[in-house]
């Protein structure tokens, strides 16, 4: 077997020191820290928090009528508000403090964007409404598309992908379609650097390519010699993240792109880290063929506890003809939607639809509001401050934490550290959990895989110097405890709503839904 050591091993330690000075409470609550039962434990099937006009009609659905109980408990409005408010307080968010998750770009989410997305003219518009009645919505999509093309220096864009990975799939499918159109079906290999995010190989495999890994150099960049040696008639292309997952700019990307093109392949750029270079570098100038843009990273749409995102893809001239439908275009003063029925003339090679309707409109309005608020000058300052903040963290902590690539020069928008020097038995995981007690969200841990016990810190440009100084102080303190082997760090967090959770039990005996219990106390199993 190949022992896959890349993942981290969750460790549990008895946690009996919750900072409570031994004081027990009747409820188990601790002042503002309130536990909350499941709705299935507090609601009832007969309770509703919504009023309806009287309706005594009966349905005429015959045998299709739903008669058996569904068992969906309801709550009154005050109970509902309290339930979710209590739950919200068990979450950490950007609004609460520094959230330095590397490669995730957790920047401030402006509330103007929320207000605009909720305007009736955007939030309450049907996707299949007649085209003359949705000119404003199409105008937003078009205006955002023009900005994204200008910022990336790319001639075309597909707006409909629903998230970064979906955009990545879109770009890779464009490459596949372009190869098929050229009759080059023998190009079945996609080259992916070993530092790549897991979606890259997953996406390429889904699109029917076989994956070959390209090593990284000791300096944390793609091994150009190894990559170039692998190019050939079976290679479809390469997927490169730039700036890369080690927080470094791929200096040789233009040369790589030229060589890949000369060898008949295409270059996909993972745009997850575009925030580092927005307004200063146009990926199009580096010769790439496709790049997705995570609107929820660079352009500040909220992460929402795990989505929804949006992943438009900019495309080169070579790939543009294959972009999926629909497409928004202008005809005179009007905006038109190019769909299946009118694609034949202008987009005969478009490969079809990737999702129903027109894409993540609610994210387009937010992202465009962010872009217009900053303008070209502000976006340049965004990348500048993001890189400044990351370098400040790097240089402030390199005397305490191992920073493997710090000697090679400045980093981009994220600083990478490792667990080298920690006491026996102490790991990156312990540092992350220690930071929780200090009131911070931990950085990205154990990614990228190319260094041991990675800690990837991305402060973003929306952190103040005072906030960063406090974070740097906390991380230094926790790292010193890890190096000295403080036992209490092994059982951190002590002050969070929960101690470390037993992930092994969760995976061995999955409980994914709350069980239904019959009146006789027996668990009712569904099909």
């Amino acid at each position, binding site marked *: 077997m190949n022992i896959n050591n*890349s993942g981290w091993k969750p460790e*549990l330690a008895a*946690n009996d020191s919750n900072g409570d000075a031994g004081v027990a409470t009747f409820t188990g609550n601790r002042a503002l820290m309130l536990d909350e039962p499941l709705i299935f434990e507090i*609601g009832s*099937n007969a309770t509703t928090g*919504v009023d309806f006009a009287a309706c005594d009609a009966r349905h005429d*659905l015959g045998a299709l009528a*739903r008669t*058996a109980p*569904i068992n969906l408990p*309801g709550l009154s*409005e005050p109970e509902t*508000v309290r*339930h979710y408010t209590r*739950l919200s307080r068990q*979450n950490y968010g950007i609004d609460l403090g520094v959230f330095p998750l590397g490669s995730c770009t957790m920047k401030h989410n402006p509330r*103007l964007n*929320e*207000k605009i997305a909720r305007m*009736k*003219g955007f*939030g309450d*518009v049907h996707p299949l*409404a007649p085209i003359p009645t949705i000119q404003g919505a199409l105008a937003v999509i078009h205006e955002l598309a023009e900005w994204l093309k200008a910022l990336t220096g790319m001639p075309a864009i597909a707006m409909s992908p629903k998230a970064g990975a979906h955009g990545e799939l879109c770009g890779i*499918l464009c490459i596949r379609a372009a190869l098929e159109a050229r009759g080059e079906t023998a190009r079945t290999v996609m080259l992916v650097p070993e530092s790549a995010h897991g*979606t890259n*190989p997953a996406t390429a495999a*889904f699109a029917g390519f076989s994956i070959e890994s390209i090593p990284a150099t000791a300096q944390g960049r793609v091994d150009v010699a190894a990559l170039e040696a692998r190019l050939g008639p079976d290679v479809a292309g390469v997927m490169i993240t730039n700036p890369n997952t080690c927080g470094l700019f791929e*200096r040789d990307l*233009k040369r790589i792109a030229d060589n890949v093109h000369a060898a008949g392949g295409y270059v996909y750029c993972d745009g997850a880290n575009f925030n580092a270079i927005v307004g200063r*570098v146009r990926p199009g100038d580096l010769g790439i063929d496709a790049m997705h843009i995570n609107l929820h990273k660079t352009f*500040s749409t909220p*992460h929402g*506890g795990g*989505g*929804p995102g949006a992943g438009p893809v900019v495309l080169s001239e070579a790939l543009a003809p294959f972009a999926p439908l629909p497409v928004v275009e202008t005809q005179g003063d009007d905006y038109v939607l190019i769909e299946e*029925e009118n694609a034949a003339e202008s987009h005969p090679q478009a490969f079809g639809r990737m999702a129903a*309707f027109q894409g993540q409109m*609610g994210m387009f309005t937010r992202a465009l509001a962010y872009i*217009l608020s900053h*303008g070209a*000058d*502000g976006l340049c300052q965004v990348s500048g401050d993001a*890189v400044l903040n990351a*370098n*400040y963290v*790097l240089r402030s902590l390199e005397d305490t934490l191992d920073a493997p690539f710090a000697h090679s020069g*400045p980093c981009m928008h994220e600083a990478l550290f490792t667990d080298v020097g920690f006491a026996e038995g102490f790991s990156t995981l312990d540092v992350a959990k220690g930071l*929780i007690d200090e009131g911070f969200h931990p950085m990205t841990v154990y990614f990228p895989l190319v260094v041991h016990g990675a800690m990837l810190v991305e402060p973003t*440009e*929306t952190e*103040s*110097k005072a906030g960063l100084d406090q974070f740097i102080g906390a991380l230094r303190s926790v790292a010193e405890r890890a190096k000295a082997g403080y036992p209490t760090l092994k059982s951190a967090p002590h002050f969070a709503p*929960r*101690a470390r*959770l037993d992930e092994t039990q969760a*995976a061995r005996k*999955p409980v*994914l839904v*709350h069980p239904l219990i019959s009146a006789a106390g027996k668990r009712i199993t569904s099909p």
Partner: protein
Amino acid sequence: MRYLPLTDTDRAEMLATIGAPSIDALFAEVPAEARLDGLIAGLAHHQSEMAVERHFSHLARRNMAAAHHPFFLGCGAYKHHIPASVDHLIQRGEFLTAYTPYQPEIAQGTLQVLFEFQTQVARLFGCAVANASMYDGSTACWEAISMAARITRRKSVLLSAGLHPHYVSVAQTMARFTGDVVESAVPDLAGSDWADLAARVGPETSAVVVQYPDIFGQVEDMEALASACQAAGALLIAVVTEPVALGAIKSPGEMGADIVVGEGQSLGVGLQFGGPYVGLFACREKFVRQMPGRLCGQTVDASGKRGFVLTLSTREQHIRREKATSNICTNAGLCALAFSIHMTLLGEAGLRQLALVNHTKARRAAARLTQINGVALATPSFFNEFTLSLPVEARPVVRALAERQVLGGVSLGRLYPGINALENGLVVAVTEVVSDDDVEALATALEGVLA
């Protein structure tokens, strides 16, 4: 710049710590030929909050919002009343500005919501398990097809003609690259193809996909089809684009569907011109390890308290890389939260009442509209959406209705351009937001347009 906290003094101090002369110097690793030497030409500069809001207000006025007009559009996106508390709660910063719950000790809010959401979806669909949501209904449908192929080790899927044409298009796009064989057909107003599908399902079939209610709004029992699939070793995938219907009609799981997916927009999520929406995904327990997407599971913490974590993540791309069950690495978290809050406010009693109100209003509207000369009902059994056969092509009628300030439905010509047999079809959705006056407005406008 209102979103950037650093002052010039801060920047100078930080550069001194770093030992760099300027911010530009921090970009020294970027080759000079790749660096722009100034701002990108032709782009606007920063603007005040007021100016940006004004720009969008202007654009928003160029759209006809559902709330401002008699409104009857459906076909995969529905306007329901969303209680005010839903939008308030999802805007709490702890939900709105949280990340994926990878640090479960400080993400129990999101995780418990996902566990409750999974349970609600599973019960609504009549399935054993559900995931933490997908991008939307159309992509969830493709993921179900892909999962069925993994389970059955077959690659041929039969799509019912009643499946939303955009969903069909997504499946065809993906299948072109994965090598799955997708069979689909144009629907027929004369009746559904379920009996035909039951006859065609065979030893090569991975799955049969039906929509319930279907694209015309028609509802039908799927038990016979489920039996036929089971006998052939194929899976039955049911697609629900209007989950409110399941407050009135039997769930697909009850009738034997193996995988049930859907679009959850109807509950808690606005129309938003098509996205973001929330894909629902549920199935039998034995398929759990083949499921795509995130799963939240119950466990305990080190001191024995109940808690929740993302689990079974070895299925996913960040661990399995090219062997993952899907490349998806997100869910529609905030939309799933909105769905779950709305469902909690409704409860079973409220959902059933909501469904009854929808159904009743739709029946009444259908009765009124079919009084118009030449207008006939094409869907004998429906929930809150039905198809009318007009005496003329429906698509220009819809535009003419819009000019009379009525958003009267979705023409089948929009969904199936070039199919003559369908061009007179108009799909009309009637939810609780439609008043009797709205129905009368549509009837009057339609009479006027047809006159």
